């Protein structure tokens, strides 16, 4: 048996089909993954993401520490309480140890990292803390619920207290605010508007119940994966890992090169790779029958080097298969993918397929 989130019994009560995910018992779906996917695109769905790891960074050197630790620059958050930043945490070779979100809190910073990488992330963060006056505090008792979709904000407000609803009303996109013991962020992993709410674990089941009552559909990790893939968002361990440079994972935009004298971990390796050139992460679209899957080979016409699919699925919104793939920089607009001994033609597109319910293809 794996770890259980405070919402474990809520999942069982809702008919959740539980699977192991990074050592946690999590719902893969509550019946139909596709129906859950459509709920998020058209109405509102919620995900238990309590398995994610929350670490608060406090102390006099918190800002300096994170400016060294992360490829993106938390100085962008200066004077913007609640503002969030997406970044890679890199090793000396520029490989991605994890991707994370960091929020600017008045008391310091709140970092949210992946659950499967928790142990190595914490070890790395502790190791790099040497010489900095900081404290790292894991907030293991917090639950986290992501409510996503065009109706997510309205329906969440119905389930919240008036004070919480007022905080939600004031939230700009990609910012978060604490209210009492809660922290409400207008962030997500689906390509839809929505919220991610951290709250004490013992309050989570009642809030989940209130969200159900206001018409928010419970959604499992299956729908979370198809939604993030349609939105072109990376999944750690698929699109990137410790051997992948962010430049080859469509994360170039998360590297803050300026100011030039900020010496973040991995900078030197990234600078050389930037000059030499890297592979690139692209989107693939298969209009024929078939489903692209991670690990399949991508053949680029006129190119000796092949690419590989990092994530692939049937897209419930588009009605055909899409994928993300790492391919040589020379790749153009067409390729083929070998699926069960057949070479299927695919189009190469930007890795961004659906946003706010609309096809970008």
């Amino acid at each position, binding site marked *: 048996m794996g770890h259980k989130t405070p919402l474990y019994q809520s999942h069982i009560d809702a008919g959740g089909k539980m699977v192991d995910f990074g050592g946690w018992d999590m719902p893969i779906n509550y019946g139909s*993954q596709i129906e859950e996917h459509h709920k998020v695109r058209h109405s509102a769905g919620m995900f238990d993401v309590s398995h994610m790891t929350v670490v608060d960074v406090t102390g006099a050197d918190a800002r300096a520490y994170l400016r060294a630790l992360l490829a993106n620059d938390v100085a962008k958050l200066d004077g913007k309480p609640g503002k969030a930043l997406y970044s890679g945490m890199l090793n000396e070779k520029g490989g991605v140890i994890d991707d994370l979100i960091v929020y600017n809190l008045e008391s310091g910073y709140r970092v949210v990292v992946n659950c499967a990488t928790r142990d190595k992330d914490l070890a790395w963060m502790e190791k790099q803390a040497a010489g900095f006056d900081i404290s790292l505090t894991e907030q293991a008792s917090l639950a986290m619920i992501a409510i996503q979709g065009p109706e997510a904000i309205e329906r969440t407000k119905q389930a919240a207290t008036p004070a919480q609803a007022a905080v939600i009303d004031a939230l700009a996109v990609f910012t978060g605010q604490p209210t009492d013991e809660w922290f409400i962020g207008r962030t997500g992993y689906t390509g839809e508007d929505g919220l991610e709410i951290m709250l004490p674990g013992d309050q989570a089941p009642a809030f989940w119940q209130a969200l159900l009552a206001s018409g928010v559909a419970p959604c499992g990790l299956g729908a979370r994966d*198809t939604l993030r893939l349609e939105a072109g968002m990376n999944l750690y361990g698929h699109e990137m890992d410790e051997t992948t440079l962010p430049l080859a994972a469509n994360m170039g935009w998360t590297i803050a090169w300026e100011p030039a004298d900020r010496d973040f971990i991995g900078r030197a390796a990234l600078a050389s790779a930037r000059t030499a050139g890297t592979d690139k992460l692209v989107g693939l679209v298969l209009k024929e029958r*078939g*489903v692209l*899957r991670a690990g399949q080979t991508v053949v680029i016409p006129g190119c000796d080097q092949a690419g590989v699919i990092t994530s692939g699925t*049937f897209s419930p919104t588009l009605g055909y298969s899409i994928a993300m793939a790492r391919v040589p920089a020379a790749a153009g607009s067409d390729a083929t993918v070998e699926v069960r001994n057949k070479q299927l033609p695919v189009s190469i597109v930007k890795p961004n397929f659906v946003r706010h319910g609309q096809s970008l293809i």
Partner: protein
Amino acid sequence: MSEIRSELKYLPSHEWARVEEDGTVTIGITDHAQSSLGDVVYVETPEVGASVSAGEEAGVVESVKAASDIYSPVSGEVIAINDALEDEPEQVNSSPFDDGWFFKVKPSDLSELDDALDADGYQAAIEADE
């Protein structure tokens, strides 16, 4: 709990076979199989007129989650395929033993089904998996 029907024969790879009154055999995947696969999005069946062999690959079912080969429980000639699955593959999920059938075979040797599992044997096979 998955449904298992007593009148059917089963393969450990989760196909079912039903011998019809006219001696033909209808083939599909079980309720347990559709539940494990999740939402089915494509089904590839053999073509009408093709021959299939017992225990050999005869098609593929793709769900959002994974692709899975389909094996034929009997040898023979394919005499019909379920065209409706092209537009409504979700019938495999909603009605695995009825509307969600895959193909029908005119068997060359019906005794091959003697080697297949009965309902109790299939139930035991599922439980051994879990």
